[in-house]
């Protein structure tokens, strides 16, 4: 019985921590982009204010499916959180978590998609269709990389892959397979919907895409979902390529570095059109990933 | 030489008749000419059949007042019996053919076979 309470406590703690960290990262990102564009930009804690404001305002809904979508999105993402080791905190180190995480992220995006399209706004459905197309683009190289890693280390759990890189930083996957790390980095940008690959929430073309209809607490929940997704993807990248970390502080520091690099990298490029985005993902990243995989298999 | 001629004249003649009839059927356009050449082929075959049964210097296979006993040399009677029936058949077919030609003439009002192509492929 105590164990369950301890579990639930740990459960809630991790959720709150990653929400806060995620929002912080979003604030930092806004700051960096502003600095690159020679302006001051909003204070780093701005996302916290936004979330509190949003939960205060009243919102409109378009029926049951709209609410169910928002809840499923946030719920799915929170559930994914517990399969990824954040530093030393690891709730469930079970087999097959790597593939599981990819599919659990899919639940979240499916829930969000269902809710927004349920709102009846055509711009939302256009945004969702673009998101799904782009997902197909970046998911393929990512799975090839995972295929190679699982085959190489003969374990399909994130914890196992992390342990495999223990010892000196030399045998981090970043240095063992630099090409694969680079491809994973590009895919990371795509996954997070950062600048060059953000045609799905293109403000100018389709009125910020899927989130167009959600205001008030719905927008708040979607923001929280965004923040946790950032944390998950970064944590995954750090675990797989930067050898994870003993305690949470180093882990957050590594995530911060990757996040800053990603934002800077992102703010330099204009937006890809959807089919060019897919073509780009399938040309270079997929090619390099396959070469790397062949190298590992043979 | 003589008996060779004698021997082969009948066969040669009938084969020739058949070939002429065949040529007639294949090339003539007029339907009645086709029927005539058909009859020609029939007579050719009948001639050949009768020639088969020929025995030198024997009399016709008919028992009548002149020849009672059957010991005398007869020409082989069987081909002649065959020819009898085949002549009957030939005339029957010819009659039927002419009736059909009349009917076709009513409809197509021409005797030229190449024009009568109501039934294509």
């Amino acid at each position: 019985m105590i164990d369950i309470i301890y579990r639930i406590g740990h459960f809630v703690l991790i959720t709150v921590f990653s929400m806060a960290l995620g929002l912080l990262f979003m604030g930092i990102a806004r700051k960096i982009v502003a600095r690159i564009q020679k302006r001051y930009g909003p204070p780093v804690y701005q996302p916290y204010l936004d979330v509190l404001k949003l939960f205060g305002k009243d919102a409109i809904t378009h029926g049951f499916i709209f609410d169910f979508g928002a809840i499923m999105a946030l719920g799915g993402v929170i559930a994914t959180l517990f399969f990824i080791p954040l530093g030393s905190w690891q709730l469930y180190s079970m087999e097959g978590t790597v593939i599981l995480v990819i599919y659990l992220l899919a639940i979240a995006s499916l829930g969000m998609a269902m809710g927004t399209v349920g709102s009846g706004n055509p711009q939302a459905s256009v945004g969702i269709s673009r998101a799904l197309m782009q997902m197909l683009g970046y998911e393929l190289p990512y799975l090839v990389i995972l295929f190679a890693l699982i085959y190489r280390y003969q374990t399909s759990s994130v914890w196992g892959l992390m342990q495999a890189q223990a010892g000196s930083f030399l045998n981090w996957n970043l240095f063992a397979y630099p090409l694969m790390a680079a491809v994973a980095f590009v895919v990371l940008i795509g996954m997070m919907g950062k600048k060059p690959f953000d045609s799905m929430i293109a403000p100018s073309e389709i009125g910020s895409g899927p989130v167009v209809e959600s205001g008030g607490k719905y927008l708040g929940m979607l923001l929280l979902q965004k923040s946790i997704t950032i944390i998950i993807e970064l944590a995954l990248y750090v675990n797989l390529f930067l050898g994870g970390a003993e305690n949470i502080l180093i882990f957050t520091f590594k995530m911060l570095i990757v996040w800053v690099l990603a934002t800077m990298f992102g703010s330099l490029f204009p937006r890809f059109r959807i089919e060019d985005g897919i073509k780009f993902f399938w040309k270079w990243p997929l090619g390099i990933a396959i070469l790397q995989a062949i190298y590992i298999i043979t | 030489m003589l008996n060779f001629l004698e021997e082969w004249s009948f066969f040669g003649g009938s084969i020739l008749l058949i070939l002429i009839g065949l040529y007639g059927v294949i090339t003539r356009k007029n339907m009645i000419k086709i029927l005539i050449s058909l009859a020609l082929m029939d007579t050719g075959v009948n001639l050949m059949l009768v020639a088969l049964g020929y025995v030198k210097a024997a009399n016709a296979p008919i028992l009548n007042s002149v020849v009672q006993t059957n010991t005398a040399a007869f020409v082989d009677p069987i081909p002649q019996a065959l020819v009898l029936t085949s002549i009957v058949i030939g005339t029957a077919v010819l009659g039927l053919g002419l009736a059909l030609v009349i009917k076709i003439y009513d409809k197509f009002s021409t005797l030229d076979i190449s024009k009568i192509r109501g039934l294509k492929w």
Partner: protein
Amino acid sequence: MLTNYIFIPIAAAFIAYILNKRNRKAGAVITALVSAYLLLSLTALYGRWDITQSFNLSLMGYKIDFLLAVNPLSWLFAVMTAAISILIALFSINSQENFKFSSVFNLNFLIIIGSMIGIVFARDFLTLFIFWELMTWTSFYLISAGKKKMAGRAAYRYIILSAGAAYAFLMAAIFIFQQTGSFAFDSAAEFLVANSPAQSIMLLLVISLPFIVKAGIFPLHIWVKDAHGNAPKEFSPFLSGMMLKIGIYGMIVVFYQLSFFKIIENTIAYRGLPLLSYLFALLGAVTIITGTILAIRQEDMKKLVAYSSISQMGYIIIGIAIATPLGFSGSMLHLMNHLIFKSTIFLALAAVIYRTGTTKMYEMGGLIFRMPLTFAAYLTAIIALAGIPPTNGFISKWVIYQALIEKGYLFLAIAAFFGSIASFMYVFKPLSTVFLGQLKPQHQNIKEVPLLMKIPMLILILVIVLFGVFPGIQMNIINQISGYLGIETVNYTLYSIQGANGAWNSLLIFNIFSAGFIIALLLFSFAKKSKLVGLLDTYSSGEYITDAESYHYAYQYYRPFDRLFDNLAAKSLTDFYETLTKNLVRSGEGLRRALAAGKLQNYALYSVLLFVILAAVGWII
């Protein structure tokens, strides 16, 4: 004793036909009763693998014996057929009110069930062929009872393809019959193993032809789209649920019972897998890719789901062809799961068609408000199809991935990944265009489907989630099959399967997922109440839009993606077959024009020419 499972449905078919003439519901009720009887008696048969039945017939100098026997593999397929036919019969009781051919439907449907059980219990080529032909013929009549003109052409193409393959099968079977003196599988297997590898491989490939056609594998999959798309709405679930599986059953028989793998053991291997079975796996991979790309393009929802069945078949073929224990159990799992969620999707679509009357996606929208249960059934089914964790679809795909990764087949894995990720796309398209988005004015007064159509959907939803959480139920029958076929078994517990490197626990995931969901729900309910607003009251960035028609994004949902594959889809395989038949017609035409020109002279000339030619030929010899 086994024969009454085959001949009771066939006999009932005629009774159903006669009764249905008088009252339209009688046929479907009889089908439901018969399939219920079948399901009960077949499940009672579980475990007794020794029942065999055979009767022989000496027909004009041929001693032929017909053998029927039960084994785990055939038992599973028989139970699946019976289960899916109950659900469809229940569903069609009142979904066929205004269906012109409902008595023909029930007649043929019952005969198909009987012949399918016959196929599955057959242990020799001739019985298999007889029931196979019976099934092909009756399904031909059923498909052509679908949509007006297109169903006819689809059934026509289907019957020619499967009849050609079936005749090739008959020729190979008779060839073996002449060598071994009997049609039975076992004697054929011994003969094939002993025979020279090249010839027996050729024979086995010809024997597997009808199964490749029926399973819709790559080169011969052209009939699937039209047949499923245009078949009557109640028959599509059966067609793509069960009929495709019979092709897979045939492939398993060819691979294992006719010892195809033993024969090709010593041929050149690629990464430890004989090249021929790798070729089959590659065929499966290509089927996945073509099926997915073409599914994304479709505007007609039934055709879209038909293509998705083709691509899911690809998974099963890959699983079987790589011949590893994990691979085989993965494909058997996926086979059962695919049957379940694919028939749910088709039943949900049939309910939508029953209410709206059209299958074109862009003519519908916003049906969630009018048909919530159908939406729920469709949602669970597509979550399973896309392979998202709490449902059974994920488990079978995960096991197949484990099998692929364990042996390191990169290209097959890429095709499998592509298939499953892209399935999110084509699965979401009907969801958003049919159920979500704007509700069209003409569909305002649509009611939910009657109770009898709801029950099958509810049962199927429960089964999806049940097998999603407890895959152990499926695993014990699959292990018996692997044992029977001589493949090592995969160890498992009620809720977890032992993968290549570590066990997979589905119950745990279900709990965590619901925990996350509850946290989000709490967060949602604490916040302020929100005001319900109509569908048209949305942010349209300044434009003033009144009618729902122009406010619903449905037509060419993934246009950018399709543009990438426009040229590939353009030269689809069907025109290859079309040109083939056109040449056949032109050759016939040419001969006809030349020879039968109606001129009497030519006919007379031909007879003389025949005489002259044959005389010359005789003269030379």
